[in-house]
């Protein structure tokens, strides 16, 4: 039996003077438990653990880019298109992923394997283009690397 979410959340909340501070860690845990996104029941679970309303929890989640309110694919591919990467070919990298996966930024492949997103600067600007795959950063990615990366990810 995995540890109940409420127990895990309360243990985290105990680190803070006010338990409300644990809402972001709690949402993150709930998101992991629900396969990478936050369905309506996740807000009820988090709300119950922290004595907050589900609507409050959802209101917090919608503010932050890393909480997903719709299902995401098994692998999350995020391409930075801010200026430092942009000056060095980020758009070509994004287009290469669009071609390799057959989806537009913001979309998930029909088989549920991949979600492709464009993201704002993720803090690796000196090593463009930066691509985050399930939050792990790949640096110096070029459009030519993309087919190989997609191959790898399909089989991992």
């Amino acid at each position, binding site marked *: 039996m995995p540890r109940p979410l409420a127990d895990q959340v309360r243990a985290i909340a105990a680190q803070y003077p006010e338990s409300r501070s644990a809402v972001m860690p709690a949402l*993150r845990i709930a998101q992991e438990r629900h396969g990478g996104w936050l369905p309506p029941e996740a807000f009820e679970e988090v709300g119950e653990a922290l004595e907050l309303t589900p609507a409050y929890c959802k209101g917090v989640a919608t503010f932050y880019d890393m909480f997903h309110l719709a299902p995401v694919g098994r692998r999350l591919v995020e391409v930075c298109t*801010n200026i430092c990467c942009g000056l060095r070919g980020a758009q070509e990298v994004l287009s290469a992923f669009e071609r390799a996966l057959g989806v537009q930024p*913001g979309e998930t492949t029909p088989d549920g394997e991949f979600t492709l997103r464009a993201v704002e*600067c993720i803090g690796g600007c000196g090593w463009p283009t930066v691509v985050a795959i399930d939050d792990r950063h790949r640096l110096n990615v070029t459009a030519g690397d993309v087919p190989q990366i997609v191959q790898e990810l399909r089989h991992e």
Partner: protein
Amino acid sequence: MSDVIVLAGADERDLTQLGEYRALGGYAQLERVRGMAPADVIGELNAANLRGRGGAFFATGRKMQFIPGAEQNPNPHYVCVNADESEPGTFKDREIMNRVPHRLIEGSLIAAHAIDSQHVFIYIRGEYLDAFETLRAALDEARKAELFDGVTIVLHRGAGAYICGEESGLLESLEGHRGQARSRPPYPAISGLYASPTLINNVETIATIPKVLELGGAEYAKIGAPPDSTGTRLFCVSGNVVRGGNYELPMGITIREVIYDLAGGIPDGRALKAVIPGGSSMPILTAGQIDVPLEHDALRALDTFLGAAAVIVVDDRACMVQLGLRVAQFYMHESCGKCTPCREGTRWMVQLLEAIEAGEATHSQLDLLLDVCDRILGKCLCPLGDAAAMPVASYVVKFRDEFRAHIDQGGCPFGGESSLDGLFAPVDQHTHHPVVEEGVPA
């Protein structure tokens, strides 16, 4: 004396390991400082003239002096380390956390002692998963070695919002709210986290503190470009250079030296067009201005700032209207929406820049763009609005002919050949999923 301060020893040793850091004298300053009066610790930081590395360049010792004593405010005092690093062009705090996490922890504990605090929070941006894990491991090691002496350090992960790097947005987020900025006063030193006295400092600022104490404030103050720009910075070099990356150097080095001596110059035989000296929110400099030393006063004289020391190099392939558009799209996306000039102004900037880029604007709309920037500047609840308006206005002023050419030619003079052509922005992204039935994934 070596000029490397914050990253000292990291090339030779694996300083993520406590034993290695201690072998270099790590945590010795913490031990020494715990025997000192807090006021004397702050005195050293003032003697060093250590200024904040998060962008605003505020004197660190003075900020600590604003924190009331326990007799004036009996609430707990808090230290918040700002590891949200989200300004486009910056990636130095990431390197500090990845390579010298114990120096950050030691600095945090010294800062806690200086303001008589038992509680440290480190707010790290959610996207830095590797740095989070490295820092968490270092914290575990330091805790087991009983270096905390009753102080708690909580590592708190953000979840993707630039505004949470702004100190009041950070506090809101840490309290479990949407990360919207707070109006000030009161300032965090008086009423910050949980309405209690709070010191907020950037990762690099905090990680500099142990070395300042080791060298002594007066010695530290000789490094760099005294009297104001003392010490080193981790310059984040990106854009059109051969070797991007972080370079720790004394303040006062010129942009030309950074680009050509350290970063290997401009690749592909292209020509330098412009440089942003401090991160995407800072006014731009032209290729003719790169002999300016990277220090506060010299950059102020050119109407720009060192900011977070992010040097973004732009070559002659880039269209300045597209650059302005992409920068404006970022700030529009990140506006917390609390105040009107920023929320509406950034949207308006984007619309005008889109029209100019498409060749559908008139000359009066170019003037309107500057007017919109002017109506944002200094009129917002927090500096994010300025962060959008300042750079874009500077692109128009410095590259006005290029903006005008878009209008006169009815389109982009680069004709699709700009390096930034068609760059997609997340603000235009909508989430689609093939089949969603009653919230169940396909």
